[in-house]
């Protein structure tokens, strides 16, 4: 079945940059783009075991009379015929329900707060909850559109890290772009991570599809991130372990999102990854 990318259109200059990234992603992956032009400042997303209310920043409703036309024009300029998502169901009269049966979703770092918060180190609470609940990965767009020409996966050996790796394989196949893997080994050695890859049964695919695998055995993780290509789409597993572990040991994804200015593809704990998929 065809791949669907979901985008919430914000009718201003920042929203244009985000939409350009959705369009670029759709073109690269040969996916269909589904665009939601909001008419209310909030909507609900009903996931399998949770419901997320997204309270949009009021700038999403700027000049509603031009929003649809602008969104469609941007997509059509790149040869896409986007499908407009029109809510069919409402929990309350001003609270539409948005479908969640997509394969990818694009989001800026925040959808609920002022756009002054779009800088590094901040991902809004709504975006985080979507990543945690969704069965699809979420592309966290950069403030300004810049085409990416390669893929970088962060693999730390966790369950979500494996999911990110599998998504990396899938993306590499869909886009034909080179795939780089980065691992912060700390006290472990490369063999430890190789074992995990073997146990997951993805060693052959790893061998075939990964162009380079950088394992950092020394240095601070944030400093090592300099090695990540500037034009890479970074794929990272997120929120795979509990709050206490995050507080005690820190979260890999938090350090990445606070350091790297690249677009991030965040793979949440509910993403159902497969090597073939």
């Amino acid at each position: 079945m065809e791949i669907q990318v979901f985008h919430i259109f914000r009718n201003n200059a920042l929203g244009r940059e985000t939409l350009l990234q959705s369009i670029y992603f759709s073109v690269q992956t040969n996916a269909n783009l589904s665009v939601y032009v909001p008419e209310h400042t909030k909507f609900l997303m009903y996931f399998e075991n949770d419901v997320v209310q997204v309270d949009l920043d009021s700038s999403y409703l700027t000049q509603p009379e031009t929003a649809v036309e602008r969104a469609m024009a941007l997509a059509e300029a790149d040869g896409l015929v986007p499908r407009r998502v029109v809510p069919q169901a409402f929990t309350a009269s001003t609270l539409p329900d948005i479908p969640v049966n997509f394969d990818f979703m694009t989001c800026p770092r925040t959808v609920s707060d002022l756009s002054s918060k779009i800088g590094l180190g901040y991902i809004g609470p709504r975006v985080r909850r979507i990543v945690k609940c969704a069965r699809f990965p979420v592309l966290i767009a950069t403030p300004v559109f810049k085409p990416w020409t390669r893929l970088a996966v962060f693999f730390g050996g966790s369950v979500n890290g494996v999911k990110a790796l599998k998504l990396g394989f899938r993306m590499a196949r869909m886009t034909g772009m080179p795939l780089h893997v980065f691992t912060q080994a700390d006290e472990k050695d490369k063999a430890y991570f190789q074992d995990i890859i073997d146990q997951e049964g993805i060693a052959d695919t790893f061998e075939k599809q990964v162009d380079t695998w950088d394992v950092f055995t020394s240095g601070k993780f944030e400093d090592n991130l300099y090695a990540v290509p500037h034009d890479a789409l970074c794929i990272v597993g997120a929120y795979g372990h509990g709050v206490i572990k995050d507080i005690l040991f820190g979260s890999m994804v938090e350090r990445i999102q606070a350091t790297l200015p690249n677009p991030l593809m965040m793979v949440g704990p509910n993403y159902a990854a497969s090597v073939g998929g």
Partner: protein
Amino acid sequence: MPTRWLRGLPIWKPIWSSARVAVKRILNLPQSSWNLFRGDDRLLLIILGVMVGICSGVAAVALNRALVTMLEALHPLRHHVWAIFIPGAGAMLSYLFLEKVMKEGAGHGVPEVIYSVSRRGGLLRFRSSFTRLVSSCLTIGSGGSAGPEAPVVMSGAAIGSNIARLFSLNERQRITLLAGGAAGAISAIFNAPVAGLIFAMEVILGEWASIHIIPIAIASVAGCEISRMLQGNQTAFSHHHFSIDLPDIIAAIGLAVLCSFSSILLTRMIRNMHDISAKTPLPRWVKPAIGGVAVGGIGIFFPDVMGEGYHAIRSMIEGSYTQGLMLIAVIGFLKIFATALTLGWGGSGGIFAPCLVIGSFMGLTYHRGLVLMFPGVDWVNEGCFALLGMAGLISGILQAPLTGIFLIIEITGSYEVILPLIVVSALSTTLSHSVEPASFYLKDLVMRGQLLRPGTDGRVLADIGIPELLETDCIPVSRSLFLRDLLKVIQKSRRNHFPVEDPETGDYLGMINLDDMRPYFFNPVLYDTVLVEQIMNTDLPCVHPAEDLGTVLQQMDELGLFSMPVVSNGRFKGMISKATILDRYRRELMVQTAH
């Protein structure tokens, strides 16, 4: 939790492990303790039902206490003329709290709970477990004409839903706990466990599946018990003995007519107020204040229309309500008007308590009318008709006769009125249903096509997506193919349909159907002269994978089609046929109706 700590200590590990295995062998339990609950859903649901009932009971008691405190605090101010602004201020604050602070997207509460059961697998937002308590406290406590029941139902249901989410329960279990929360809330606020159970089954779930009954009953008991512990075991209205005779039962028929008329009037007036409010060009936060001030104005002259109004019911049941016939009738209709003003203009609260008040006014009016017209008949005490009126109104507006009957019996402790109670409730429900086919809670959902009870045609169709039904074994053919080559393709295929695609772009162009080709088969001269594009059907309507199956089936019926092509982004994706739909429909129906 302590066991987890014990397991973490190395010295305890072997002891703990051996003890656990031994106990489980003796008791013949599954080897994983969690599996004990996982293996037997009923036990897990009963335990969680207790938890949900306690939490929703506490929520109901908290709202009750807050309302009493607020009403008592504002009571000394009621005699001032400016007190008419108090309900307006309360309703406005309530709206601002819900919309601006909590961003709730407010409704009346119960319809959202039913929608969640019907369409969203019982998922409710966590914030709904407390927002309506605060907002309804502001509206009702300041004098708005509404009841606290719908807010506590919303709160209890949200508690149940979120506890189910916390334990990662499946959809059916989540719905059971949601209904348990609603039952616990009603049970706690009225001290009426049976009414809580019946309300959850009859109104919230709309089905009497045995799988739901026990956990909901347990939650209802837990809610009631926690309320009794915190507030004492008292019925809302004191018990009085009524001696019912045949004339009273016959007279109940007339009361049912009056109650159904009143319930239809209330339903329509709330909707009309809603429409008028929507058309009024004022900021949304001002509108509840307008409704509230209007109620405050009425309340200056008729204080019984304000708030939940239980004090008036008490005096009516006791037979000590001293106003005359006309005045009682006027107050009854003013209560309908005040409730419509409060809820229709955006105040937060429920319809339950106003129904009880309006019903008792209607019952009293009717009784006094009877006494006036037939002074020679030995009628039962007027308090009895107040009770019957309450049941009639509840049954009429909710179209849930059992809820009406059991609620009145439990909150008054008057079982001897059961016969006329059944007559009034049954007739009021029937008459209201004949004029308004959907109840107050369901009307919006029915109009939006979102009331889909499990096992109904609409629900089954809504739960099947087009992508699940795709038949992808059709062989696509090129537009430039000659008929001779097409015949070779037909020989290899098991299907009657052949999508025609553009060889360069891959775009779908039309469809070849075997039935359409019969005239060409028997004329070999045409084999090398006719191209596929000349005979393909380009008028066949297409379906998008995201389309609603119900709409697609309707289209098929209207056009007399057995199958349709599914096309997305200009590309052929497969066929959808009635045979596949029927097969999938049966499987889905079995899943939904399996208990």
